[in-house]
């Protein structure tokens, strides 16, 4: 029989080992604080203290670059959060929504439909950005299973140290600085950019052999629709007003039909760019692929009015507690904006978004 003292010693040893491994794992995982900020987006939601949002956005870069929750608050008193990630595919979006509903029940969920064009996982890096930031849960396990590429291993999402162990020789000061606490890189999920790169050319649209979205994408869209209906949430489908990748008329028609069949609101903002006031010479930072701050604020003002009227969203600016919270958010938003303008003035580019581009 093992003596209690020995058991205690064993337990302590096991705990110390586990703690060291957890520490090592935290150290080895990418921090996404000074570059590739997109990798930090998903985890930011869990640090949000006030998870009381009227609107939740889910989707790819066409949501986290194109809508400003601070503008929605300032103009309409609508509280919102963007649960976006780089090339978020529809199964990522569905499971993120399922998980978000464990924390709160928004009145409106907005889903950007560009990802309907992808019927299979594209890159491990995008999976990592969508999944690594989620806490362990049954929903996360389901999302991993749905998302993995053929050559990925399920276990590496549960124990990321098995995936990132090879980073040990390439760690930098950033890995130590943000080992225990990360900065916020977004404003309620909005990744701000103030730089401008005007649109000069619109690439020729390429013919496709088949324009019909795949069954797997419809399956997840159905699940999303069902989940929202079950929870009394209004699902809004949108296509952001970005000119590349090309959004085909045939795709647009399918979304129109789907929205009609399911009694959903679908807005293709590409049809309303003049009404929104988007100027592709000043409102985009990468020649029409994403909007910059100016474009995102215009789009938010336009969209906020629509959803407030359509779904009777209350103007909550009279709520003192919320007003204090959002005033603080607005301060950080302005600080970030001023910091970026100063950086542009000094360097001519934004460090966090340009170093890798300059490497090429």
């Amino acid at each position, binding site marked *: 029989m093992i003596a209690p003292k*020995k058991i205690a010693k064993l337990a302590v*040893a096991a705990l110390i080992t586990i703690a060291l491994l957890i520490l090592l794992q935290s150290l080895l995982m990418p921090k996404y604080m000074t570059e*590739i900020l997109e990798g930090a987006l998903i985890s930011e939601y869990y640090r949000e203290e006030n998870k009381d949002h009227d609107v939740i956005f889910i989707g790819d870069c066409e949501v986290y670059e194109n809508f400003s929750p601070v503008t929605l608050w300032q103009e309409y008193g609508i509280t919102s959060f963007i649960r976006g990630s780089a090339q978020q595919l529809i199964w990522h979006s569905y499971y993120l929504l399922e998980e978000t509903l464990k924390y709160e029940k928004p009145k409106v969920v907005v889903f950007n439909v560009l990802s309907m064009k992808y019927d299979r996982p594209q*890159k*491990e*890096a995008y999976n990592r950005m969508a999944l690594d930031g989620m806490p362990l849960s049954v929903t996360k396990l389901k999302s991993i299973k749905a998302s993995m590429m053929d050559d990925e291993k399920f276990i590496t999402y549960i124990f990321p140290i098995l995936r990132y162990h090879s980073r040990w020789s390439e760690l*930098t000061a950033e890995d130590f600085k943000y080992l225990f606490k990360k900065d916020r890189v977004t404003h309620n999920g909005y990744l701000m950019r103030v730089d401008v790169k005007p649109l000069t050319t619109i*690439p020729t649209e390429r013919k496709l052999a088949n324009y019909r979205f795949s069954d797997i994408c419809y399956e997840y869209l159905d699940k999303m629709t069902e989940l929202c209906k079950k929870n009394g949430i209004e699902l809004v489908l949108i296509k952001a007003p970005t000119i590349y990748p090309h959004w085909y008329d045939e795709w647009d028609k399918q979304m129109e039909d789907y929205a009609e069949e399911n009694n959903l609101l679908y807005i293709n903002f590409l049809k309303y760019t003049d009404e929104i006031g988007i100027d592709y010479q000043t409102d985009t930072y990468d020649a029409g*692929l994403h909007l910059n701050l100016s474009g995102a604020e215009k789009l938010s003002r336009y969209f906020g009015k629509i959803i407030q009227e359509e779904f009777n969203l209350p103007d909550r600016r009279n709520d003192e507690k919320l007003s204090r919270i959002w005033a603080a958010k607005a301060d950080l938003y302005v600080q970030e904006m001023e910091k970026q303008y100063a950086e542009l003035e000094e360097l001519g580019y934004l460090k966090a978004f340009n*170093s890798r581009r300059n490497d090429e």
Partner: protein
Amino acid sequence: MKNKKIIIIIAIVAIVAAGVVVASLGRNSNKDGIDNANVSNNDNTGNNNETGANNRDVDITREKQGYYFEYKGIKIGVNDDAAPILEALGEPMYYFEAPSCAYEGMDRIYSYSGFEFTTFTEDDKEYIASIVFLDDTVTTREGITLNATLKDIEKAYGSKYEKSFNQYSYSDGNCVLSFIVENNAVVSVEYALPAYSGQEG
């Protein structure tokens, strides 16, 4: 005895952790960390060759194997180094670049009279990912232009194609040559890497 083993295990883990810390402190904080945050660059993924980065050709005039496009004596094949081709072709009529989300790649589109091609970047070099015909002023080496018929395609390439909806594809292992046919007229001609779907997103 057991206690000693436990102490040894803890010591090993602590030494590994300490080693990581010591090895890393000397590094600078900028460039080294970038590629590592990008997990797709890690060799564990096995994704580096997903675009078929082999059999690359840098000679734009010598005879090539398989499917490739030829324009004014310049041979353009998928996976070829783009630099000598761009130099030989001169300034494109239009140029468009599309960095994908989180900068997981960059599509560059170069448009010339009658055709355009897209490149991808690997190890700081650009390679041809796909070539697409824009009008019927250009032709495949086997004589197919836009507006040709399915019969013309079969006559030029045979009937061993892969059909997906109205797309007819021929593969030589390195390049997939695809024709989209609508109302018995070719509306799209594309040379592409077998796994290439663009970097959009």
